[in-house]
């Protein structure tokens, strides 16, 4: 087969491009390698000094101080305790945002690490430890590492990078605003206007160094659910004198499961309905007046989400009525689904492969956990991925997120630095003006 001149030309261009990409990647890798020790140091400091949602005062101050040391333009505080920094590249181009969350959880650490958290506080009236039990300490350290890498490469950047350090991803304390939604409300995606946003989350259950992602719905929408079943109180010995809200609640819990099992099109996307609390009564021989149950709804598709909400209302109300009771259903929309922009996801694959190695990049099924990164994605195209941080020397089943034994593998934080740096640089390169 003869090669046409055009094809030869295209191939030559491609080769040059590939070559220049290769050179760029080596520069990123080099920079990342230089910053790795500091990234681990930062992560350990954050790990030892965890702060709860909307209370990340020292964390925010520390981040601002570090970012300033890179010569970045820093805004602090944003959305209570958040930090936003702007890095203007040497050449014109798009604005790319990179996001890290910064809050810790009310969990008492059980790890024997030298930098284990000893912080305690009072949460919901109870004494508790505070711990980075979801890896946000790693996210901050990685994003600071990226900020340093990109600052060092400032002159060759084709655009602007906005670093977003977001408070309260785990949810603001009751009665407070916070998190991604508040950041957007305060204009974090404006001045300059963000063209695309990238974010990551470490995953203790994913092999260390592996990157998982999925185009489209990647993480679930989460909605809260409260059902108050109203009966009529009676003596436990004479149920016929009342309407028993506990038996009705039992029937409602079972019936709700049939919404998922029988009524929703599970081929479109999965769905989960979990009743996590159920409270009624004060004494074994009294049939109470009401029973209250709370749950969480996970969906990936806004149509299914709406259907789910309507069916929950119908099921709870009618089953309650079937026994002469009634049900009040309140659904609190909490976080939308993390939906990865299809175009960005298709484009991100090769960049991630370069940053982490082809063997380490996987397209995976969606997960039923939620993330408020989705609020950013509702406004601008966004891409979110997981970085595996399966701890070293841990048993087959490592402690999961949000538990006192949660632990990560620091050795792969550098992969996160490389991945985010590569995505940012490649994005700016691809959209350069």
């Amino acid at each position, binding site marked *: 087969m003869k090669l046409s001149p055009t094809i030869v030309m295209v191939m030559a261009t491609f080769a040059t491009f590939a070559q220049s990409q290769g050179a760029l990647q080596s520069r990123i890798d080099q920079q990342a390698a230089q910053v790795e020790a500091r990234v681990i140091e930062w992560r350990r400091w954050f790990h030892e000094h965890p702060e709860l949602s909307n209370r990340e005062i020292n964390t925010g101050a520390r981040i601002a101080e570090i970012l300033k040391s890179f010569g970045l333009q820093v805004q602090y505080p944003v959305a209570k305790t958040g930090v936003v920094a702007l890095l203007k590249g040497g050449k014109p181009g798009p604005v790319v945002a990179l996001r890290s969350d910064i809050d810790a959880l009310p969990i008492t650490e059980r790890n024997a690490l030298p930098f284990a958290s000893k912080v305690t506080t009072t949460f919901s009236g109870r004494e508790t430890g505070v711990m980075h039990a979801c890896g946000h300490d790693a996210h901050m350290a990685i994003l600071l590492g990226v900020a340093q890498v990109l600052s060092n490469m400032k002159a060759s950047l084709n655009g602007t990078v906005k670093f977003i350090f977001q408070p309260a991803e785990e949810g603001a304390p009751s009665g407070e605003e916070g998190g991604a939604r508040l950041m957007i409300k305060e204009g974090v995606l404006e001045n300059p206007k963000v063209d695309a946003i990238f974010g990551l989350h470490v995953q203790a259950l994913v092999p260390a160094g592996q990157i998982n992602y999925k185009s489209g719905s990647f993480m679930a929408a989460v909605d809260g659910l409260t059902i108050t079943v109203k009966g009529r109180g009676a003596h436990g010995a004479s149920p*016929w004198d009342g309407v028993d809200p506990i038996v009705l609640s039992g029937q409602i819990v079972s019936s709700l499961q049939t919404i998922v099992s029988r009524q929703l099109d599970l081929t479109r996307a999965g769905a989960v309905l979990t009743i996590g609390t159920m409270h009624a009564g004060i004494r074994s021989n009294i049939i109470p007046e009401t029973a209250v149950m709370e749950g969480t709804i996970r969906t990936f598709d806004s149509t299914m989400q709406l259907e789910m909400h309507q069916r929950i209302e*119908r099921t709870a109300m009618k089953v309650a009525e079937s026994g002469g009771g009634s049900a009040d259903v309140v659904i609190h929309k909490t976080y939308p689904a993390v939906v990865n922009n299809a175009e960005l996801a298709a484009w991100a694959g090769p960049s991630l492969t370069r940053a982490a190695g082809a063997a380490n990049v996987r397209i995976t099924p969606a997960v039923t956990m939620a993330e408020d990164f989705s609020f950013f994605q509702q406004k601008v195209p966004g891409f979110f991925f997981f970085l595996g941080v399966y701890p070293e020397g841990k048993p087959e089943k490592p402690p999961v997120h949000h538990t006192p034994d949660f632990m990560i593998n620091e050795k792969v934080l550098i992969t996160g630095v490389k991945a985010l740096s590569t995505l940012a640089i490649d994005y700016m390169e691809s959209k350069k003006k």
Partner: protein
Amino acid sequence: MKMRKLLCVGLSLITGGLHAQMNAKVQAKLDQQANAIEVRVIEWRRYFHEHPELSNREVNTAAKVAEHLKSLGIEIQTGVAKTGVVGLLKTGKPGPVIALRADMDALPVTERNSLPFASKVKTVFNDQETGVMHACGHDTHVAILMAVAEILAKNKADLKGTVKFIFQPAEEGPPKGEEGGAGLMVKEGVLDNPKVDVIFGMHIQSISKLGTISYKPAGMMAASDWFTIKVKGRQSHGAAPWMGIDPIVVSAQIITGLQTIVSRQTELTKEAAVITVGRIQGGVRENIIPEEVTMAGTIRTLDMDMQKIIHEKIKLTATKIAESAGATAEVTIENKTPVTYNDVNVTEKMVPSLQKAAGKDNVMQINAVTGSEDFGFFEQAVPGLFFFVGAMPKDQDPSKVPAHHTPDFMIDESGMLIGLKAMLNVTVDYMYLNNVPKK
């Protein structure tokens, strides 16, 4: 004032005394005659046992009964409620009209007993070849009532008022599409002309100790109502339930929900109640979600108010649970047999009569049973008393008694004599009790 009160007490004491006194001579005579007729009662019973006939087909049985009553000079009416026979014994003296009832029908059960008079009768029932058997003891009821008629007819001179003998067809329920049983008898006026004041009936019990009589005031045997619930969903492929509405899952939820009517919503201290879903049909193939499911069941209640409330709750539970999943439920409830409700006053008055028949220690008040009897139709119209006569075979291990309606059902014939005496006693005692001048 004081005096009058005392007088009343005195009068009632005399009345009580009258009861025992006036009956003493007659009582001895009736007992003696009952003993004497026992052999023939057994003979009649064996004849009926060997010639059982299904509900509304009791032609030969009725003819035999009619012939007997006629021979006694009792005015008879045949073909009442299909094959029933009603006899009227007029004493010519004023007094109450007392009805005595025996049911006559047998069951589509193939007898497995090796009695010389075991049934060899065969028929086709619901398209199935089957034997026919008196597997519920109605043969004994007919024989006993024939003996009661004979003894009362012979002793007419000692009696007051009128006795109406009701030989009733189809207690077990008429064949599909036919009317029959006590309901139809009442409809055809069996309790009128002359108007019946009180009705007595009994049932032999193979599962109760020989020689005993048991009864319960108020609800003794349950009302039996049938319900059908048709759950309509929307058909779809079994692999894609979201395309339809699954009536099978909805039905399962309804079945569970129905149980909570009994467990949570019914005042069980007043009376027991039972809701049984006995049949459920839906679908034709494993991988097709059907359009609808039909379930049917029986409701047993012992109190008319509770019966009404439970019917309403069944409708509410089924329709609302169906709606909870987007389906609908059609509930139909058919009132089948009313509660066998023993008039409290009549029962209280008649207990001594039962005690005379079986001995004081052998008469006991029992808990209600959730089986049903169409005697309830009579008791809905007039006060009545229904009681059980124990006839468990003497050597039978009580834990292994063959139940009524089974091929091995058997009774001890010596139990019939107590049934006979009890029926005689309640009849004659009631006549005397109610013949006291009302002043």
